[in-house]
């Protein structure tokens, strides 16, 4: 698979940002859970990308989301951390002989490992997100509830998309 072109990646970013700020940010299940599906952008980084490119793209999508939500630095901080950890998390869910993976997906990883990978990336991002957002830390139970519910919600959406996105993966690289 050839590497994803700059334009295609930029297009995906614009699409995910619009989806996030126009629709998903309006959702607030039980007052706790807001899906943050935009991290799909980082989740799908292919292993052929340089670490620097991952960090810059990760930071970039975060700061653009921040511009819409009026939270300077919040999403940027979390998505940069996720962009740093993403390659490490991928390798946790791959057997040793499959280190040549291009894009994490069901075809390349298998359904079980993909689910584990999606869950861990979401948990990492949302944990940092809600801790940063709640500083100074006040009520731990509310904080935990927000992390758990939002992680579950984002995870379920990503799992649904990840499991169904595969057929088109054979034709497209994203």
């Amino acid at each position, binding site marked *: 698979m050839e590497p994803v072109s700059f334009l295609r990646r930029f297009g995906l970013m614009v699409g995910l940002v*619009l989806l996030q700020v126009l629709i998903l940010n309006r959702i607030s299940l039980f007052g706790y859970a807001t899906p943050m599906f935009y991290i799909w952008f980082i989740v799908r980084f292919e292993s052929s990308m340089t670490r620097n490119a991952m*960090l810059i793209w990760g930071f970039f999508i975060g700061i653009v989301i921040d511009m819409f939500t*009026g939270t300077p*630095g919040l999403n940027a901080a979390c998505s940069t951390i996720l962009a740093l950890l993403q390659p490490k998390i991928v390798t946790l869910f791959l057997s040793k002989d499959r280190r040549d993976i291009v894009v994490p997906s069901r075809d390349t990883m298998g359904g079980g490992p993909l689910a584990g990978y999606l869950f861990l990336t979401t948990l990492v991002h949302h944990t940092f997100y809600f801790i940063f957002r709640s500083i100074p830390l006040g009520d731990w139970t509310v904080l935990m509830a927000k992390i758990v519910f939002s992680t579950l919600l984002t995870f379920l959406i990503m799992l649904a998309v990840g499991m169904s996105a595969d057929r088109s993966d054979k034709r497209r690289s994203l």
Partner: protein
Amino acid sequence: MRSLLDFIVKYSYVFLFILLESVSLALLFGSNERQRMAFMTSAGRFSGSILEWRSDVKSYFGLRKENEKLAYENAMLRSRLNTVLDNIEVESLFSRIEGDYAVARVIDNSVRKDDNYITINKGRADGIERGMGVFDSRGVIGVVMLPGKKYSIVLPVLNGRSSISCKISGSNSFGFLEWYGGNPYMAYIVDMPFHTDINPGDTVVTSGFSSAFPENIPVGIVESVEEEQLNYMLRLTVSLFADMSDIRWVYVNTHGQDPEPEELKEELQ
């Protein structure tokens, strides 16, 4: 030397990470409220048009409801006009129609956060200034906090930092409308004198003591009255008239913006 260069090149991403993360955290924790607001308005130039587009699309779907609201407001105004015509006192008639309101559309709004903000599509270019009161056909919404050139940020009742001077309709005892998070339909009035005779069902209106709002803009209905023994004050739970989760068009009170009283107050503090 060579190996040092290799090391730096190999781990350049670590330095990049530290740089980007420092920038993010500096933005997140280093910025005070004013800088944060400046970020929001400067970002507003970029995001405002997209948010406005969303609000455009949404307003098509809300036309029916909006019509109902207008019809309701019309009916109310008509009945008020009748009362005015009934006891036609020229002076009071003029004091009623005096007033200057800018109409603005809400392009971004939240009710579920601890500190909510509203963005409206009017700014300094339309004569909007800091401290102007914002309300809709149902009741008080908030106060303009940061006017940008084309968009402004409004500090709504549903924000911990909002405090609006209110009174009970028909009496002169007043207090401050505040909100502590949670239910977006309920707010509280604090610092109401102990001896005041207030009952659930009484109507709360603006006091007119601040220049933000004229007198008698509806706020809500008293749900319950609590006595705070500690400081001999009453605390009222108020059910708000304005449905903050459903506001599209608002009026901004551009009349009588005399900054002097507010400036004097700030000097005193």
